[in-house]
């Protein structure tokens, strides 16, 4: 019995650490609607800065003072980031801020290694909390007891802050309806900055408090960021109490889960999140969001099919691209093939995001399923390449069809997180089912047949399929189905009123996107000759998001440009420098500031500005812009 109590308390201590970071993320999201990918980076910075300070100043005051000062320093960095970077892009399309914070995260990962060196660092133990307390023969670290108390204390302070101060009233109001708060004359700029500072402070404090337990290292951010997101979503976005309950739930399930299934930790949080979201689409304590007041941004530049001149130019560009084998070597061709494959992958997600208005955080699942489909067919059934290429993507299609049923019931970030949960579940199956998938050692020897083996042939195959995919998706965009999908995106209520079955339309779009991603995955398997669980992983899903956002969400085919720019740059940088993350991150941040609508989106805006306004009076545009 004593063991179970101690295990419960240990779970509570883990929950407290998780809660501190999660509460910060929840507050930031609730008010600013920023999906702050850099939250993990701030957590990590908190740990590093606290390490330096506590090494510098010894004694109890030095230690505890160091922890708090570290959190304050990082919070100030957060303020700087918010004022210099995020303020510029609050009006950018939804999720664009994700791109900025992703770029920051990349930079921080390289920067901490440059500043603090590559080795893992061992921080001091907390003065006064070094040992353990004996509990009927079981040992509980006294630091755990400290954390167990700290969690509810922080929760209480936050509750008081939100319920009993004017600032808290404003924050709650902004969480509920920030347009209305703005309309009532509240200075949103400073409200957002202060909220961001508090959120970052909590993240950094969470990181700093880990130094007596953890090793400070450059992977801390990724270790926590996804779990924290999951906790926030399980609890319900913007709900602090929800975040606390979710942190306790997840930590306790893990503490007791490993007693029965020692391998459960790898997937547990995602299973919990999927279960919670299917039953409660807005998390445990979240409320259904009021129908959003759509910014009319999407309708300012109406989409139109390419003119015949533009079509000719596109064909010419394709023909030119097809001429690469005449000038490029094998390496250039293989890179070309890889870029073409990622164009397919990016346009599939772009279709879902731009046309369907559904941002998926787990799109790699269908890419990876396509790849595994091919690998399993080729290695186990020994089918020829053509057959594999045709049938492999069906696995992606199947996955999307099943998961789509649940996912389209949700919207916004909840939709995104449920797709992430599904992707992680698929990933963990590929990772754990060693007998079939080979586990993380993957499936090797999936090489193309002779007719496609030469780099030039494979390149032609890839760009051919990429061109077909782009054309097919464009046709769908301008088909009646595409219009119905866009109607559902822009106004689900009006769409339903004219008889559009929104959920079915969205599900169909989800399946289409999944299948096209599966095609990309199938080609990828043959390009690399092997398949690993990585191809289902979070980082690939994030890459796809970045490509789409970089190209511009409010465009018809921005994904094409985003994929080419991001992938080419990535390959080039990784090949040239060990600091590729730093450079790539800085580039992304620059792009975000320079092109807040994405590369293609910005170019379109510039062109529209130059062109005499034919269809719209200028006054309308400007009025719409102020309304935003």
């Amino acid at each position: 019995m004593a063991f179970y109590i101690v295990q419960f308390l240990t779970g509570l201590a883990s929950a407290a650490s998780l809660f501190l970071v999660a509460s910060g993320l929840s507050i930031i999201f609730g008010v600013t609607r920023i999906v702050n990918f850099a939250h993990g980076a701030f957590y990590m910075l908190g740990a590093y800065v606290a390490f330096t300070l506590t090494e510098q100043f010894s004694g109890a005051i030095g230690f505890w003072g160091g922890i708090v000062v570290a959190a304050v320093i990082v919070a100030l960095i957060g303020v700087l980031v918010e004022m210099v970077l995020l303020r510029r892009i609050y009006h950018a399309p939804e999720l664009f801020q994700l791109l900025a914070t992703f770029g920051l995260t990349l930079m921080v990962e390289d920067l901490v290694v440059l500043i603090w060196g590559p080795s893992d660092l061992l921080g001091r133990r907390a003065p006064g909390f070094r040992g353990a307390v004996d509990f009927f023969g079981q040992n509980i670290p006294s630091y755990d007891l400290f954390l167990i108390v700290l969690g509810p204390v922080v929760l209480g302070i936050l509750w008081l802050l939100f319920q009993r101060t004017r600032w808290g009233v404003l924050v709650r109001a902004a969480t509920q309806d920030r347009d209305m708060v703005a309309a009532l004359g509240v200075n949103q700029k400073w409200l957002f900055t202060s909220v961001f500072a508090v959120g970052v402070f909590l993240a950094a404090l969470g990181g700093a408090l880990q130094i007596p337990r953890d090793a400070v290292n450059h992977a801390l951010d990724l270790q926590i960021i996804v779990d924290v997101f999951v906790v926030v979503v399980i609890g319900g976005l913007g709900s602090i109490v929800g975040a606390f309950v979710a942190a306790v739930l997840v930590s306790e399930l893990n503490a007791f889960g490993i007693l029965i299934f020692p391998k459960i930790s790898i997937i547990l949080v995602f299973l919990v999140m999927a279960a919670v979201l299917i039953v409660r689409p807005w998390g445990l304590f979240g409320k259904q969001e009021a129908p959003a007041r759509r910014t009319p941004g999407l309708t300012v530049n109406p989409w139109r099919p390419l003119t015949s001149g533009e079509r000719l130019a596109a064909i010419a560009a394709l023909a030119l691209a097809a001429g690469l084998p005449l000038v490029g070597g094998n390496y250039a061709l293989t890179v070309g093939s890889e870029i073409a494959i990622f164009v397919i992958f990016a346009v599939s997600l772009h279709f879902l995001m731009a046309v369907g208005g559904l941002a998926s955080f787990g799109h790699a699942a269908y890419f990876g399923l396509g790849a595994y489909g091919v690998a399993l067919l080729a290695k186990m059934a020994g089918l020829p390449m053509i057959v594999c290429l045709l049938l492999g993507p069906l696995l992606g299609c199947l996955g999307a069809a099943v998961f789509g049923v649940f996912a389209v019931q949700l919207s916004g970030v909840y939709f995104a997180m449920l797709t992430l949960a599904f992707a992680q579940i698929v990933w963990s199956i590929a990772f754990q089912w060693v007998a079939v998938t080979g586990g993380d050692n993957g499936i090797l020897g999936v090489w193309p047949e002779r007719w496609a083996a030469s780099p030039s042939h494979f390149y032609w195959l890839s760009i051919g399929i990429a061109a077909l995919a782009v054309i097919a998706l464009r046709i769908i965009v301008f088909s009646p189905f595409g219009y119905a999908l866009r109607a559902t995106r822009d106004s689900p209520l009006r769409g339903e009123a004219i008889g559009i079955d929104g959920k079915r339309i969205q599900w169909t779009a989800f399946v289409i996107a999944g299948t096209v991603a599966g095609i990309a995955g199938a080609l990828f398997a043959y390009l690399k000759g092997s398949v690993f669980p990585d191809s289902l992983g979070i980082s690939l899903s994030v890459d796809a998001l970045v490509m789409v956002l970089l190209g511009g969400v409010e465009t018809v085919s921005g994904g094409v440009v985003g994929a080419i720019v991001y992938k080419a740059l990535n390959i080039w940088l990784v090949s040239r420098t060990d600091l590729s993350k730093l450079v790539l991150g800085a580039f992304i941040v620059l792009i975000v500031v320079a092109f807040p609508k994405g590369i293609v989106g910005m170019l379109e805006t510039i062109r529209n500005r130059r062109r005499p306004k034919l269809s719209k009076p200028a006054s309308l545009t400007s009025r719409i812009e102020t309304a935003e």
Partner: protein
Amino acid sequence: MRRSGYFIGAVLAIAVAGMANSAMAQSEIKIGEINSYSLLPAFTDPYRKGWQLAVEEINAAGGINGKKLVVISKDDGGKPADAQTAANELVSSENVAMLAGTFLSNIGLAVSDFANQKKVFFLAAEPLTDAVTWSKGNRYTFRLRPSNYMQAAMLVEEAAKLPAKRWATIAPNYEYGQSAVAVFKALMAKKRPDIEWVNEQWPPQGKIDAGPVVQALAEAKPDAILNVTFGADLVKFVREGNTRGLFKDRTVVSFLTGEPEYLDPLKDETPEGWIVTGYPWYSINTPEHEAFLKAYQAKYNDYPRLGSIVGYETIKAAAAILTKAGSTDPEKLVEAAEGIAVPSPFGEITFRKIDHQSTLGAFVGKTALKDGKGIMVDNSYRKGSDYLPSDAEVEKLRPKE
């Protein structure tokens, strides 16, 4: 329509970049090296210093049959797919004579499969999985470091002598951890049929929630524990274990923990008396190692880690193979490498003809605390050749060519 313009631009840029590299000097021999520099700097930083020292020494001694040795190094970011892109670039644009390096097992396998497909010589430096030389072994792939099996066999030799009957295991939940535990269990079962396995914990790599894991292990009341975690996970595991008294009166047998990369971060929390494999650079008194140590410390003003040895010896062995082959033809390289004996800081090693595994060994010893730092004591070097299964068994493990 601008998107097409971008496409052309990007394609042309790549084409130009590709062509620019094709101009190459004839008086050089290039080795293409790939490793997870950005993902695992704690290991790859000393590793790079090691191979840079080797390159310097080789060129100072006249290069390879009179040609200058050049190593072109690429980062794989810890992703198998990126490692293949890098391998492709090295082979297609840089025209390297051979590939070398890699750390993670799945990346080692991906590059090995690439090497087999493209018929390129590949010397795997670090990946530990047995599959590289056995179940997925191929003609073109050789491996330097003692494999999972060899390290397990070295530890089992010591572990079997312990009186402990009840054993628990903790290992990261991925192929390396899984196969380390499986081999250890299988080899232990042969020597000690009387032991029982009372608990196993599989925290995700890099994401251990140490408190509950340590508590669960303690509750099983094992006499001894097998640990396979390393890096940041190991630090957390050790800290929680120390606080909760998990290691009191228990012997721990631990993979890799004696390597300075993993032992040094533990500082004054290093648990004493663990039986570990590792690299006690401070107490190896052979002339080969002393020469290496002196050269390394003179160049970097730092002590070597095990990564330094692996990097150094990878390039030394690669150079020896290139010198012996007298050609960059992959087939000739394979012939030269099979059975070649090369000197190393740990003494002479051989690349076995039967499975392309080198006989580089490891040190087995016990952890101890000295001046607030972890060290290895009671060390002995175990030759790799003594810890490999019989040729008949190896024949069965390797696919027929």
